[in-house]
Every structure is written in structure tokens, then in C-alpha cells.
């Protein structure tokens, strides 16, 4: 009996592992197809413009709320942990760098993996089950060029824009909390905390490279699960859940490896 159970467990583990690697492989195939579709990006410019709008304007409000509270939260935590052994501007420096380089990009991307990833997987998935993807093909329109590529480019370009916007808000709310509300530090000291050991490369990294990679992941993974949808409404639900879970896992894994690049 016990043996049977353990056998079953390993078989299921094996199936899961295989299906994980199949998914990774299929996502890689979709990536190659999208790269092949790049020359026709001008042809699909209207779709690209729509997605640029969708990925930016519609996500700014939620990004703003998150950024403000990340700024406040990090500052409260930092000031609470501070001791007399460290100059306060050093703590400001730590808060500043962790927020800009790590906290804001990753929290935002995870939230947007939920918002954008789920919605685009559901959108493409419901097109799949209602034969709309096939209808595109019969109109000589490439589903990858028409649907996937514009979303990938939008993710690549717009997540950095959102993150820069969010980082400014986070910085501002941090300043507001530590200087204006609690009077914990003077404005001059706050600024010298920001200037301390300032490396422009780190700013590019946190504001630009990381969010671009995550935006790309969100669009690619979401599109993949959308295009793979089978079955009815339940299939669409599964597609969007899978899109969120898998892109979130990819994001934290990439976050670690991108972080290691800095060292």
C-alpha cells in the first residue's frame, strides 16, 4: 500500500516535471515565432499602439497606489530599524536603493503579472475557444504578429515607463514620510543619502532593464497560455491562472539572476 502511494507520488512528480519542461519549450518556440514576426511590426502598428495604451495608461492608477505605499512602508520600516550606530543618511541610502532597484520593480511586476498577464491570457484564450484565432488566420493575419508581438513590445517598453513613474512616487512618498511627517531627517541629509555612492548604472538597472525583462515575461507567458487554451470557460480560467502563476515564478527567478549580475 505504502509502496503504491509512493510510486504514484513519483509518477505524478515525473508528469509535473515533464509538463513544466514542455511549457518552457513551448514558450521558447513562441518566443522564436515572435522574433520572426518582428519584420512585420509596422504592418501591425495599430495593434501595437492599442497595446501600448493598454499597458500604460490603464495600469498607472494601480501602479501609483502601490508605489506610494511601498515608499511609505519602506521608510517606516527603515526608520524603525535605525539605531544610533548608523548615520541617518546611510539608512536613507539603504531605503532608497532597495526600493528603486528591488522592491518597486518586483512588487509592481508581480501585481501587473496579475493584472495584465491574467487579462491578456483570458483575452487570447477566449478568442481561441471561439474560433477567432482561426478567423484571423483565414484573413491572412498571423496570430503571433497580430496578438503576441504587439503585447510583447508593449510589455518591454511600458513596464520601464511605469516603473520609473512608480519609483519617482515612491521616492517622493519616502521623502514626505521621513522629512515632512515625522521630521526624522532634514531635507539636506535626505538628499545626501540619495547622493551617497550613487551609481547611474544601478538606476538604469532598476528602472529599465529589470522591468523590461519582467514586462516581456508577462506578455510572453500570458500569450502562451492564451494560445494553448482548450475547452470552454473553464479552460479560459485555467489559462489566466496559469499565466499569473508561471509568470510570477519566472519573475522571481529572473529577479535573483539579474540581481546576481550586479555583484
Amino acid at each position, binding site marked *: 500500500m505504502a509502496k503504491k502511494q509512493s510510486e504514484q507520488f513519483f509518477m505524478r512528480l515525473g508528469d509535473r516535471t515533464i509538463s513544466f519542461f514542455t511549457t518552457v519549450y513551448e514558450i521558447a518556440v513562441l518566443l522564436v515565432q515572435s522574433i520572426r514576426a518582428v519584420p512585420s511590426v509596422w504592418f501591425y502598428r495599430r495593434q501595437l499602439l492599442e497595446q501600448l495604451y493598454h499597458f500604460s495608461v490603464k495600469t498607472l492608477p494601480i501602479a501609483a497606489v502601490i508605489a506610494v505605499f511601498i515608499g511609505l512602508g519602506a521608510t517606516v520600516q527603515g526608520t524603525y530599524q535605525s539605531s544610533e550606530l548608523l548615520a541617518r543618511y546611510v539608512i536613507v541610502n539603504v531605503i532608497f536603493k532597495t526600493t528603486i532597484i528591488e522592491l518597486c520593480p518586483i512588487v509592481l511586476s508581480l501585481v501587473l503579472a496579475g493584472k495584465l498577464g491574467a487579462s491578456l491570457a483570458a483575452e487570447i484564450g477566449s478568442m481561441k475557444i471561439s474560433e477567432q484565432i*482561426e*478567423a*484571423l488566420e*483565414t*484573413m*491572412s*493575419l498571423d496570430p503571433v504578429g497580430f496578438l503576441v508581438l504587439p503585447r510583447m513590445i508593449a510589455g518591454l517598453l511600458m513596464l520601464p515607463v511605469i516603473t520609473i513613474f512608480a519609483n519617482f512616487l515612491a521616492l517622493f512618498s519616502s521623502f514626505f514620510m521621513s522629512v515632512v511627517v515625522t521630521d526624522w531627517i532634514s531635507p539636506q541629509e535626505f538628499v545626501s543619502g540619495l547622493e551617497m555612492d550613487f551609481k547611474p548604472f544601478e538606476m538604469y538597472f532598476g528602472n529599465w532593464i529589470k522591468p523590461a525583462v519582467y514586462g516581456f515575461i508577462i506578455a510572453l507567458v500570458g500569450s502562451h497560455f492564451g494560445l494553448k487554451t482548450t475547452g470552454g470557460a473553464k479552460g479560459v480560467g485555467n489559462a489566466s491562472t496559469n499565466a499569473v502563476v508561471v509568470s510570477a515564478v519566472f519573475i522571481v527567478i529572473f529577479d535573483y539572476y539579474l540581481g546576481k549580475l550586479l555583484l
Partner: protein
Amino acid sequence: MIQVRDIRKSFDGQPVLKGINLDIPDNATAVILGPSGQGKTVFIKTLVRLIHPDSGSIHYDGEDILRMHAKEWQHFQNNIAFVFQNSALFDFLDVQENLNLFLQMHKSMTARQCQQEVARAINFVGLDEDVLDKFPEELSGGMRKRVAIARAMIKRPKYIFYDEPTTGLDQNNAEKVSELINMLKHEISATSIIVTHDIKLMRDVSDQVALLREGTISFVGGKDEISAQTLDFLYETRGEYDI
């Protein structure tokens, strides 16, 4: 002329199409009649490369479409329009944009010319121009089907495929659709290929009938050659059809 030779297709080891042979002459309306679940949708989709068969060949005027490169096929596809079983209108576009999409992407027409084409198509299928601003979810099933037919006709195709054009419509709408299929054939002088289980539709529109049952074509001929016995055999009924 479309020549289908020995098309086979299985899903997960379950054969659905078991060697289909069929010739469809130019400018004919060919109806492939069969009960539900016999592979009609699978078959009509293999004819336009939406599903790739496991083996067999499909020639359009002597050209094997299964051996065409993607680019060639994309070009050839301009000759083909497909009306899907559940209309498949793009739900993120309104009716105007649904009809316009093909022209906008593939034809060098001015916005004005496109608009005229769209208006013409929508009038042809008997809908008012005020549906143009509506989204597919705001239309009834019958209207959606007519928009789908309008979207197909805007391509001015040589071949037009219909998957169950009357399924899910009431008798009134179903008759309108049959009428449209006949009118459209004359309007754009296309070859029409229809799969359906609707015997009335078959009688109203077909020049040639093929019966599809259990993955093979068991009969090809004119609609008058079909006997009540054949239909009983096809639908596993007894004396329900009088011809």
C-alpha cells in the same frame, strides 16, 4: 476545382477522418451532409489548412495546398473565405471594424472606399447600417451570422466555406441564410462548400451533395438522387424523411 484525396486525421489515436475522397467542381455549391460529431468541422477545416491532416492531399486547380510554403499559402488564402460555426466575429472590434479589418490590412484602399465596401456588404446581407457601431455581443445570433457572411464576402473570394451556417438559428433566420448563400454565389460567382446536418439547407442550396458518416464519404451526387433510405441510413432514423 478542388480535389481531395485520401485525407486522414486522428486525434489521440482516435480516427476521425478515415480516408476522404471528394471532387468539388468550380462555381458549384457543394454540401457535405452528416450527423453531429462525425468530423464535419474537422474536414472543412482541413480544406483550408486550419487543421493539418495526417495524410492525403488537397489540390485547388491542381495546386497542392498542403505542400505550399507559409508565404505562398498566405497569398493563396486571399482566394478563400470561411464562415465559422459560431460566427467568430472579433469581439474586441465593432461590426464596422470587423468588416474593415481585411481591407485595412491587405488592400490599398482609401478610408472612403473601405467604408463604401463595408456599407455595400452590410446592405447585401440585409442589415441596417446602424449595426455598424455595435459590438458583436450586442447582436442576435442571426445578425452575427449575417455579419460573418458579410465579412467573408468582403474578401471577394473564389472559394467560400460555411461550417453549419444554419445551426442555432430559428427557421426564419435559417431561410434567410440559405437565401444569402444563393445570392452570394451569384454576386461573387464563388464556389461554395458547406458542411451541415440541416437537410432543408441542403435541399435549398446544393448542386452537389456528399454524405459524411463515420469518417468517410458514402455517397456523392445531385440532391435529387438522395433517397429517403439514404437519409435514414445517415441519421439512423426510420422513415422520417419523405422526398
